[in-house]
């Protein structure tokens, strides 16, 4: 049962579904999908492979009309999720659409989690003044902390809880969703290499990253990708961030992290996740960094901009989300 908030508004509708267990997941998502199918709306579901199978079983033949995608692949770097939704919207001009996307699950690292939360807010910025379509974001209350659920209430205008949909009274709103992101980044531990740089130091910067990556055991291809990405971010510092910057490189467990800091002001919240425009002058550096690196963290702080690029030493294979109960427990049928 849906609450008073009308689903068919003339705006983008961003709704969090707070569920506990497989049965609540199914009863919260399947009617949403079926409503869309009956209204001939294209439906895209970006979920774990386990939940995709669960939904296919529940939908039966109707599943054939739904497009499914693996969130572990699409959202490995959370900054790549908005471009996927952008393409979905662009692929169906003039039509109402529905989507389900669950970017946050228990196994996300702390760094990934906070970038997922930033992603959830930026969805409002990306689509809040565009076409009307509905995006439902399931949150697994059994396995996510209370602070994660509270943040979901702030990043979603609507919250579906226990079958009732209500407008969130702590939703931060459209303007604040795209405000500069200034959540502090944790300071690295020991073993940090530093290099102040200007234009003529780019070759030295590339050499330092390449050597550190090789020492850490990063594969040659991923090393070249990391070097390319960091060079672009450093070039942004040179061109737009005061003409110079500083590089820090360190390793945290199995992740190599490169940080570029400069005195520039980062004021385009979507510039790293909007597919570049065709014209030659369109910015591409941060977009490219998000395509090449496992995670990119951008912060606008009092002293300037900080960009951290993460590269896992061993690329993570797409993996399944972990739920407490197997799909054989609980109802998979909403009838």
């Amino acid at each position, binding site marked *: 049962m849906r609450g008073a908030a009308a689903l068919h508004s003339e705006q983008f509708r961003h709704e969090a579904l707070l569920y506990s267990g497989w049965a609540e997941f199914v009863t919260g998502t399947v009617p949403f999908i079926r409503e869309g199918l009956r209204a001939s709306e294209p439906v895209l579901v970006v979920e774990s492979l386990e939940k995709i199978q669960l939904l296919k079983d529940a939908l039966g033949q109707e599943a054939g009309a739904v*497009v499914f995608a693996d969130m572990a692949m699409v959202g490995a770097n959370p900054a*790549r999720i908005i*471009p996927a939704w952008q393409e979905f919207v662009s692929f169906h001009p003039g039509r109402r659409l529905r989507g389900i996307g669950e970017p946050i699950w228990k196994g996300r690292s702390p760094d990934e989690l906070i970038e997922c939360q930033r992603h959830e807010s930026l969805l409002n910025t990306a689509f809040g003044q565009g076409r009307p379509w509905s995006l439902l974001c399931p949150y697994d209350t059994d396995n996510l902390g209370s602070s994660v659920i509270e943040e979901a209430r702030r990043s979603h205008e609507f919250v579906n809880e226990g079958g009732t949909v209500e407008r969130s009274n702590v939703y931060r709103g459209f303007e604040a969703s795209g405000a500069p992101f200034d959540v502090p980044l944790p300071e690295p531990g020991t073993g940090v290499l530093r290099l102040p740089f200007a234009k003529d130091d*780019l070759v030295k910067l590339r050499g330092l990253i390449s050597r550190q990556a090789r020492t850490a055991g990063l594969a040659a291809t991923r090393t070249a990708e990391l070097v*390319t990405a960091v060079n672009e971010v450093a070039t942004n510092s040179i061109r737009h961030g005061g003409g110079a910057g500083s590089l820090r490189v360190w390793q945290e467990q199995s992740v190599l992290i490169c940080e570029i800091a400069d005195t520039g002001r980062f004021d385009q919240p979507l510039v790293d996740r909007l597919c570049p425009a*065709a014209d*030659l002058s369109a910015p591409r550096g941060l*977009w490219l960094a998000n395509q090449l690196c496992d995670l990119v963290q951008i912060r606008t702080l009092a002293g300037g901009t900080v960009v951290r690029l993460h590269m896992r030493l061993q690329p993570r294979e797409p993996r399944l989300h972990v739920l407490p109960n197997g799909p054989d427990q609980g109802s998979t049928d909403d009838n």
Partner: protein
Amino acid sequence: MRFLFKSSQVLDPHSLLSQNEGCIHLSAHVNRKGGFGIDEPFDAALGGDRVYGDKRLIVTRTLRPHGLRFAGEIDATNSDAVGECLLKTVTLQDQDLHLDVSALIFCDISGIRSFVEAAEVRKGGRLMLHGLPELLQTVMRVTGWAALPKLVICGCGGPKP
């Protein structure tokens, strides 16, 4: 959709390579008795004139095929000079312009932008990139520059040493 519907195409770097149409290497291979062979570097016998050089990049002119050869690194320090090379030294706008980039060991977005700009201003002929390293193919794909009508990424692998 780039990430969902066309993922297999996007993930395959070879998918953006041309079918060697118009490739000087392939045509030379087919007709090697009549001209220079596929195993020969760009106009090796002629000796290319240097049109640009700095500590990290050398650009030489090639006459057969008509074009330039880049060896070294392109970044913010020299990409403007690369753009000027491309726009000023190559004047035969109605012919295909062949760039041997097989010895390019680094090229940032500003360098690729120079290639794209040179392709877009051509009046008749295309700009053909030979031997583009795989990473740069990836960069061109994700930055939206892999499918331009006047820019061909040739799958020939470039001239053999």
